């Protein structure tokens, strides 16, 4: 299979050195960009590739770049979202620690396409050691003239800075990220205007995931059509998945878009340990609806196929759960995460996640009250679609899908004696 992202993973970090990166074909896409492409042509090529954002929402990248106004009073920016906080996701980590120059190269090309001089990588605070790797790589890139006042003698100035977050999931949401980058509290902003028009410091800003940007050099080198051909009609190229949970070989795997989910579980990951049966899979990070074993058999790893079973590709964090798992417990865990990470801006998410968790807590003690399962479902319903940003939806969807598909695990938590006492009291 053609690899786009993980070609240098085998070097186990060797490619952090710019010489190794150069020897293995690095920065050639950048050179080619300046030689053969106008900024608009870069955007065209990315549009042709059918590359979609790998941060979770899957928005077509070329289209997003096209939204940036050509003329702007304020400076434009390219910001790389390396906040990677979605539970079950660790792909950006490997991309950055094994092949930092690939991301840097992708960012420079993006910056050239959009006319951005100053650019940022916003990295989650826990990745402090990767921040060091990136900064070293950036220093090398400056030394060799890939960054700085006059990139490769093209006259284009490009600077790159790494900015660490301080441990908030919400700062992965692009507008909260920008707030945080500006030194403010990490709250999402009102949209519209979208960052592509009014973003960092009020300037047009493209926020892209690490993986999205890392795919750009290959697209430039091999053409958008070639990239698209690797995947399906609507989901071009390859994607990096983080597989965790009950598999023999958890890890990051790059597969072509449209690859069957179970093939990845069984082949790449070596199947489920101990010959146990599969119970459920969360296919795209903790925010997406859970799917059953039967559904898992049917789906392929692309945006459209996931939609057919009511789930999403999300961030590509595949969490595999075998028959020993109690879906109530995993859902409670996920809910705790969202309660803890809700930024507190809007009513449904702030109050709803607290309330959801309260109900989970008593059910956890087997003290669930009759109607609690319905209550959970309804509370999730009252969050879904009503919150200020998608985090509210992310908290609601796992709860609803888990109840729909694994109701038994929830019903067990209702204290039946309480039913009698309560009805007696009524």
């Amino acid at each position, binding site marked *: 299979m053609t690899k786009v992202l993980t070609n240098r993973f085998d070097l186990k970090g060797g490619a952090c050195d710019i010489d190794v990166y150069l020897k293995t074909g690095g920065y050639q896409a950048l050179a080619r960009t300046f030689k053969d492409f106008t900024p608009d042509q870069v955007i065209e090529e990315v549009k042709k590739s059918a590359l979609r954002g790998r941060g979770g929402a899957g928005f077509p990248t070329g289209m997003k770049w096209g939204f940036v106004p050509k003329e702007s009073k304020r400076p434009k920016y390219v910001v790389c979202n390396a906040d990677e906080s979605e539970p079950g996701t660790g792909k950006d980590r490997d991309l950055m620690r094994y092949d930092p120059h690939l991301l840097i190269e992708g960012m420079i090309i993006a910056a050239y396409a959009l006319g951005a001089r100053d650019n940022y990588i916003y990295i989650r605070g826990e990745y402090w050691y990767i921040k060091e790797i990136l900064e070293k790589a950036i220093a090398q890139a400056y030394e060799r003239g890939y960054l700085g006042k006059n990139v490769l003698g093209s006259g284009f100035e490009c600077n790159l800075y790494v900015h660490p977050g301080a441990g908030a999931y919400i700062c992965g949401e692009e507008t909260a990220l920008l707030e945080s980058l500006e030194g403010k509290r990490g709250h999402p902003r009102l949209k519209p205007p979208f960052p592509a028009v009014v973003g960092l410091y009020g300037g047009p800003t493209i926020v892209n995931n690490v993986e999205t940007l890392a795919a750009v050099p290959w697209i430039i080198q091999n053409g958008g059509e070639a990239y698209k051909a690797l995947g399906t009609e609507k989901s071009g190229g390859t994607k990096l998945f983080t597989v965790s949970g009950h598999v023999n070989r958890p890890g990051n795997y790059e597969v072509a878009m449209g690859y069957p989910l179970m093939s990845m579980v069984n082949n790449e990951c070596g199947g489920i340990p101990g010959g146990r049966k599969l119970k459920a899979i969360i296919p795209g990070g903790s925010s997406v609806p859970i799917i059953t074993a039967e559904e898992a058999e049917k789906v392929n790893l692309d945006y459209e196929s996931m939609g057919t079973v009511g789930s999403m590709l999300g961030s590509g964090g595949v969490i595999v759960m075998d028959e020993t798992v109690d879906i109530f417990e995993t859902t409670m865990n996920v809910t705790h995460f969202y309660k803890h990470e809700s930024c507190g801006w809007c*009513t449904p998410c702030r109050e709803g996640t*607290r309330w959801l968790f309260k109900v989970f807590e008593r059910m956890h003690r087997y003290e669930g009250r009759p109607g609690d399962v319905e209550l959970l479902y309804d509370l999730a319903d009252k969050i879904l679609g009503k919150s200020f940003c998608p985090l509210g939806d992310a908290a609601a969807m796992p709860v609803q899908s888990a109840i729909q598909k694994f109701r038994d695990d929830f019903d067990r938590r209702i204290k039946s004696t309480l039913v009698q006492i309560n009805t007696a009291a009524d």
Partner: protein
Amino acid sequence: METVKITINGQEVAAPKGELLIEACEMNGVYLPRFCHFRGLTPQASCRMCVVRVDNPKIPKLQTACTMPVSDGMVVTTDSQEIEEVRSAMIEFLLSNHPVDCPVCDRAGECELQDQTYGFGEDRTRSQYDDKENFLERQISPFIYNDPQRCVVCKRCTRVCEEWMDEFAITTVNRGSQTLISSFSGWVECSDCGNCVDVCPTGTLLHVPYKYVARPWDLKQTPTVCNFCSDGCSMLAGSRSEKLIRTVARDGRGRTAGGINHDFLCSLGRYTIDFVHNRQRVDRPMVRRGEHLVPATWDEALNFVAQRLSEIKAQNGGESIGVISAGRLMNEDQYVLRRFAEETIGTKNADFYHDDDEVDLAAFFKYGTPAIATQEHIQSADTILLIGSDPNEENPLTAFSIRWAVRQKAARLVIVNSMPSRLERQAQTAVRVREGSEPALIHALVDESRINDAASAMGVDAGQISDIRRVLVESAKVVVIFGDELRSAAVEALALLEETLATPNPEVAEASRKAHIDALQRAVKSSNSTQKPSINENPYTYIVEHPTLEVAAEPVSSATKFSFVPLVRYSNSMGAWQMGLDSAGTGGLSAQAMINAAGGSIKALYIAGEDVVSKAGGNASIVRSQLEKLDLLVVQEMFLTDTAELADVVLPVTSFAEAQGTQVNNGSQVQFVRRTIPPVGQARPDWMIVTQVARLMGTDFNFQGQLKNVFKEIAEKIDGYSGLSHNLLANEGATIIRRALPDSGRIDHADLHNRLAMLTAAIDRSVAVDSSELTAKAGSRLQNRYPLITRYSEMISPKLAEESALEAPAPVIFPA
């Protein structure tokens, strides 16, 4: 105003173009529930109460009406089952961890959460009481209580603190369901305006003095006018059992007194009012018996005063008696005092007390009445030139309006001042000049050839002054706000600005404004500059990022390009002037001159409401010994002030809360002050006491004991008042007093320029320019500027004492 057609629930209506949907609905009689939306604050869209369905343009999700500008042909539904469900769900969420301790909550009865629950919620909740997470109630400032569990995190409070006050004193701390309103240290250091409490829709933020004091439905709420500075804010005075309990700009139900300040009050207007019921109030007349002032009946006291005044008049003539009033007394008091001086006593020596730190009104009005700007004018000004003074400390509403103009209308603010001011943070240009050199600016503005000389007198670059001059020429409407720093010729010369700084043509102003907005939109520090731009550095984001919000209110227009706000010191300095109780008008001795002449040509003083001893500050002992030389000192006062203690007779008077009448603010707007509570003790209104003394001395003013008759006469006799009545003012609110504009024909240009040159020449150029950073509390100037009455407020006096104790610059430095 440009309007668009929109359809709300099937009904086609008109709405101002660009207006927010939630406001447009309300204008058309459809109220949408809300917590976070508050007119004029940056949209927040966090409570999710105001959701509507937008069918044209078709939008799949429900939308928040508080963030949607209306567009032509928009079709919305605000009432449907799905919308009702969302609203009641949000209410249920908000109540899920709410203590619902309404019986002990001070907001109950005017709580928006209660009201919205009744209006849009359910009569049940599925959240269990034992599930609730507790947060402890605490006091966070001398004036504010905080009960975090009642918070709906609408952030009205923090936005008000940032956007109205530029304080950034409170913020949200923690995250998610643990979010609290607090300051980082837990103790709030700010100007204590209390506006955050007023706008809070719940019982989360509470006024300390109002805590557990009354229930809103027990309060009688009287719209009246603040008495502590010349801005003249309206307020709702809440009283119960004949006690004044609180003053608010808006009550929990969103009702305001409908004044010029809308929802704004400052700490003085809000927290000083407890002086009214201070136990030290003089509650009955006092007459001196040897060493002591002893209580007397009104008859005794009045007869004594009348008799002694008559005797002194007979012996030494009327001119040996002086009448001094306080600038905060109302028009009716000033007017009656003037007649008293003229007709009863027969003296020209009548003056409202003011010294060098009062605006030079005689000079300002020398050639007529220049166009005076109101708060509305300031708020929609194109350019604001602030000379001297520090409105932020002395005229907080004016400061608010300045910030409003900059933030919401991208006004250009130019400050020329000799001391630091927090408003410099909003300024496009802030020039620090030598203390005392402000008049030179006017010289340079009216005579371009003097820029170099003036600049060197001010200790600044000539370029800075010509830049200011250019901005003024290129602006369409300029509001000049000035304090007492300008004197005599410099104030007179303001009348020349209109002709010397005329805009060549409208296109110039247009282009200049465009360039200004354009610069704002570009004004982002490059992101790789070492210091990142902070939120404070770009106060303009509101208009620049939300241009649609510059809508609705039509800018008020003025006929002239220049209009002025004289920042007079007292709540009714302007009124006193208009009533003619000013030595410049009467041609007699000024208040100071009378005191100086005490024991000489002045044998008796009749002082209404001013503590002239304390006013003298460092010279108090001199003034005291002067007063001691008098044959008779009559004082009308609320307290035994340092002056009253020297009096032969002290006559107890009503406070602003007990009296009725009219006062004129620095925008020359006359307002009606309503009586909120009955007089404390035996206090009587100043005007009434004076008429009674006059009657005993043989002059009957023919008011029949009726205040409205006093005003009737004012309306007949005083320029600009014709057609006005108490009734009308009570209904109309602030009404501009219009008088003839300056007659330029009367100006002797050569002489004026000469005198300006002399002013400039007289500036002491050895004084160093104070370029110090602004400290957290630039209190020094204020020590003797707060109204003296604050001494009798137990709420506010500790704060002021603390501030005046700050001598060395306080450690906290605001970002420049």
